[in-house]
């Protein structure tokens, strides 16, 4: 009799445990640049994630289960990022989020792939999705998508014959520099100066002097946000007046805030901007500003979209299945009409790259002004 009661209690306990596991929170792990040179990137990304999770949980969660995320700081250091990702994967998250720096993504993506966990990240280096990793997904355009648009703009609109390139000597910067150099060659645009700078560099006086000496028709700047702000200030200080063109990291909100007047006139291609003439993006911006009291840059959008990518993919599967997640997201088109959190229609290809509309913007009186909308390709 006593053994029957014990067996009954055991069964009840196991059943209760199984039921809890079924209805327990869905665990996500985020590894981001919360301090160090990439703090702007990581903190925007983190805040975007937290906002999306709060929204989804407030509406009853994902398939009836709450989302739960742990944030770990990579300190903007690939070595630390790798250790943090390893630690995060040991806890078997549903999906891994981050990092934002391409160099950190490069060293962490093999770990996630080995664990069979999908990794949704913020890196933009072209090579990240070229290596056949089936578990890696972008939240924004890779350089192979954005650089041709920038080169075309410099050739067609600015009519520049020579360009000085300033790039940051890391995976992100070198990847961008290599792709844009090939694109310039197609248009016979001469490289007047090819200037490599260091991540975290504070003083750009010598680099700008080199640009001045090269006298290019335009300057292409491909640095991280804080360095972009510093070089814009130095370019203004040394009275460089030729067009300054870049990508998202040159014309982001944080750069505008840090560089002040020096950011005026900077132009660039951005995949994501809170100034986009899209109602859902405007609504996102309002919600973000209300919660955090500042205007996010594109990294805030990336973090937010990453969570809605998880939501749309999971709902498509109809269940929480970490092993099938990556397969389901490949080739998936998520429409903003059915999932407003995705903000704009987006399609993921077999490599994890995205197709979405983009924007050409210019900083006018401290604000991003969208000059041209570049439509989604497919």
């Amino acid at each position, binding site marked *: 009799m006593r053994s029957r009661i014990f067996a009954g209690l055991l069964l009840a306990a196991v059943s209760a445990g199984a039921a809890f596991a079924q209805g327990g929170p869905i665990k996500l792990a985020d590894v981001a640049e919360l301090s160090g040179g990439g703090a702007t990137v990581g903190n925007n990304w983190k805040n975007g994630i937290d906002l999306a999770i709060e929204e989804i949980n407030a509406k009853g969660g994902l398939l009836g289960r709450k989302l739960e995320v742990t944030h770990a700081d990579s300190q903007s250091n690939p070595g630390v990022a790798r250790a943090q990702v390893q630690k995060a994967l040991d806890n078997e998250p549903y999906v891994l989020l981050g990092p934002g720096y391409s160099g950190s993504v490069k060293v962490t993506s093999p770990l996630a792939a080995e664990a069979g966990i999908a990794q949704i990240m913020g890196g933009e280096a072209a090579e990240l999705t070229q290596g056949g990793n089936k578990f890696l997904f972008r939240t924004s355009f890779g350089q192979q998508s954005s650089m041709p648009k920038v080169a075309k703009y410099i050739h067609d609109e600015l009519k520049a014959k020579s360009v000085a390139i300033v790039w940051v*000597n890391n995976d992100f910067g070198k990847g961008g520099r290599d792709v844009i150099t090939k694109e310039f060659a197609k248009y016979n645009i001469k490289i007047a100066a090819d200037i490599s700078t260091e991540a975290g560099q504070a*003083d750009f006086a010598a680099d700008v002097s080199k640009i001045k000496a090269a006298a290019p028709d335009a300057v292409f700047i491909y640095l991280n946000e804080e360095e972009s702000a510093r070089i814009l200030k130095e370019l*203004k200080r040394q009275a460089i007046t030729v067009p300054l063109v870049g990508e998202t990291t040159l014309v982001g909100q944080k750069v505008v805030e840090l560089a002040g007047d020096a950011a005026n006139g900077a132009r660039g291609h951005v995949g994501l901007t809170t100034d986009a003439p899209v109602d859902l993006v405007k609504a996102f911006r309002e919600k973000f500003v209300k919660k955090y009291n500042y205007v996010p840059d594109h990294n805030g959008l990336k973090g937010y979209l990453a969570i809605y990518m998880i939501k749309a993919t999971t709902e498509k599967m109809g269940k929480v299945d970490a092993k099938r997640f990556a397969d389901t997201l490949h080739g998936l088109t998520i429409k903003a009409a059915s999932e407003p959190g995705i903000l704009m229609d987006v399609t993921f290809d077999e490599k994890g790259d995205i197709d979405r509309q983009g924007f050409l913007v210019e900083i006018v009186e401290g604000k991003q002004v969208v000059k041209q909308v570049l439509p989604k390709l497919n």
Partner: protein
Amino acid sequence: MSNLLDLLVAGLATGAIYALVAVGFTLLWQTSQTINFAQGEFVMLPAFLMLAVMHAGAPFWLAVILGILLSLLLLGLGFKLLLVDPMLRHGVLPLAIATMALAIGMKEAVKQFFSAEASPFPSIVPAGDVSILGRVVSLQSLGVLALAIAVVIGLTLLLNRTSIGHQMQATAQNPTVARIIGVPVERMILLTFLINAFLVALASLLITPIYLAKFSSGEVLGQAAFIAAIVGGFNQVRGAIAGGLLIGVVDNLAAAYVSTQYRAAVPLALLIIIILFRPQGLLGRPEERTV
């Protein structure tokens, strides 16, 4: 040639700020044998103090005044009373290590209170350009250079032409004899700490609009100023000034003509050469110590 002129002007402007910080190094060393490895963080903090005052609603000019006063209090008086005085009696090395700990503590505290992200900081020199010898030079570069040079000249006059300056020099050269002849040694040492706090606050005011306010911004400055002080001569104010200007120019020329990757290595190479062939520094005087 014109490029070289631009590089020299920019290098001198940065070097003048290094000189301010390096002078503080040498003053503290001379009067109290304090090697302050938190000197870079001492430059970082005043900008955040000023930002805190501005966030409270004060105008920039008031934030500058209050920031300098708070720096005198915290980085001058507080530093001497709470860290240097208790640690110095245990020797130079424990004090040097304590300043390293202080540097880490200051960085982490600023990160905790202000976030790890960079913040913009207003410039006291207005934006704009002037034409000199046919070259366009920014007012900011000239303003930084002029202000730093004015302070260095003022400090040199204070040390060499005033009674207080002579008393400070006497304290630095031989505190025991200075005490015997009636110099208020303790007060002179405190004055040195206050002068250092003023110099770092000024350096902070000049460099932060360019480097941005960030918890880690003192790392580069502290290292550059330390190298400048050794290269110029750790026991001479004029040596620190020369060292600061030299490092600023060498750093810029190295970035332009060697490579950006190796720019940080060139001042270090200069440091090694100086230590090997002229250990007292370019303008320093040899010191002998008995055991």
